[in-house]
């Protein structure tokens, strides 16, 4: 991956304190960005920055609740000219349809959709002419049982990505999404209700994805080399969705 030498090489990664966001932060730092690691959990964001620094990169931790519009605007103002934004922070929980309440939907959309909007609006203004936004969707967007509030919030990410791509294209800002399949994060491994072997059996290649798999796709779409790619949602799921939402 080419190193960015322009001045505005700053990238913001939300939810960069853990899992996929941490890997994205490390990859973007390696590609030459100064990475602002923004996370609700400031201590975890600091840990990510320590890893970036140890690898010879530049990073800075920000304690941020992405649903706090004022805090988002203030942070982006502090950061200044921006080259890249990765909307990675998101929440997930399982709840069958008959048990769901409107409040579950609202909370899910507040974090996974509305906060993404606020971040994009502030970031696009800070990008001037040229930049890249990458949103993290999920293969759940294709349709998933037991968490319709999450699945539809991620489908919204796809529609948002295409629409904003159209609106920002004339400014030279690309907007793309990466839709991860099942990714083996520390959190997933820690969940007692998840049978990892059963999940592996659904994969054409027999393996689950890693945070690095997602980070590499994000780094590609964020780089100037992908400057003619916009509005796309790239599934990174090891081919799991080839047979549609249910897998093959």
């Amino acid at each position, binding site marked *: 991956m080419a190193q960015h030498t322009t001045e505005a090489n700053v990238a913001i990664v939300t939810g960069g304190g853990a899992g996929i966001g941490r890997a994205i932060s490390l990859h973007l730092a390696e590609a030459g960005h100064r990475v602002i690691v923004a996370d609700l959990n400031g201590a975890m964001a600091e840990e990510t920055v320590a890893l970036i620094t140890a690898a010879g990169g530049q990073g800075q931790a920000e304690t941020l609740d992405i649903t706090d519009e004022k805090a988002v605007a203030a942070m982006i103002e502090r950061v200044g000219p921006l080259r890249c934004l990765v909307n990675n922070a998101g929440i997930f929980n399982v709840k069958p349809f008959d048990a769901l309440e409107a409040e579950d939907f609202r909370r899910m959309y507040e974090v996974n959709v509305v906060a993404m909007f606020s971040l994009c609006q502030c970031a696009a203004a800070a990008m001037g002419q040229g930049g890249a936004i990458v949103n993290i969707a999920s293969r759940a967007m294709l349709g998933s049982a037991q968490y319709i509030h999450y699945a539809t919030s991620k489908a919204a990410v796809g529609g948002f990505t295409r629409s904003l791509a159209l609106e920002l294209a004339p400014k030279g800002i690309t907007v793309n999404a990466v839709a991860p399949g099942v990714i083996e994060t520390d959190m997933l491994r820690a969940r007692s209700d998840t049978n990892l072997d059963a999940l592996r059996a659904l994969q054409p290649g027999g393996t689950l994805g890693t945070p690095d798999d997602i980070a590499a796709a994000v780094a590609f779409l964020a780089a100037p080399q992908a400057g003619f790619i916009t509005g796309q949602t790239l599934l*990174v799921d090891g081919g799991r969705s080839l047979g549609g939402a249910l897998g093959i």
Partner: protein
Amino acid sequence: MTVENKLALITGAAGGIGRATAELFAARGAQVIAVDRDAAPLQELAQSGITTIIGDMTDPALPETLAEEITRIGKPLAILVNNAGIGGGGRLDQTSDEELRRYMEVNVVGLFRLARFAVGQMQAAGGGSIVNVASIYAEVGAQNSSGYSASKGAVAALTRQMATDYGPEGIRVNAVAPGLIETPLTAERIRTEAWRHEIFVEQSPMRRVGQPQDVAQAIAFLASDEAAFISGESLRVDGGWAMGRYPREAQI
């Protein structure tokens, strides 16, 4: 991007996208075998250390020639970029059986045959990565080019089929779907045909057509280990064109 030291076979390497891809792979340290039926431009690639083979996609003996070359090099085939193709044409009522067959013969049968050859090589080696060059015309409705679009639709379906069949053997198969790309062949048309300029530049979200390098970068990413968990995907490299036309404000 890690294509370094890998043996990569690139078809249609004398043309716009193929040539940019061959040069990018070589610059990233891959060992490239470049195939095309057009001999003269291949010679320039040969001068930069790329192995070149003059061959026709419609020749059933092409895989044999390639197998011999790969044996001579003594390295397993890790990557196939199925890029050779022919385009153009008109609406269905203007397209003869013969013309349709020509698109199918190169864009589908030739590509299918080479893919079958590469899968055999990759099975023996325990894995590999194939990138097919489809087209945005495989995904959205477009004026004219009915025979061409049908052939690229076949490439898109074959990509998913192969990814499903060979995923368990460690072979990833993806496609790129380029929008209008400026190559020696298309540059003239983009400049002189007003309607083409209007639709593909003025009304395209990014206000430009693509360059061969734009597509080469996407191919190199999908072929590399960075894309190890991506299979069966078709990545549009079209500047947002297929999402919808986006005229300038004054025209809305």
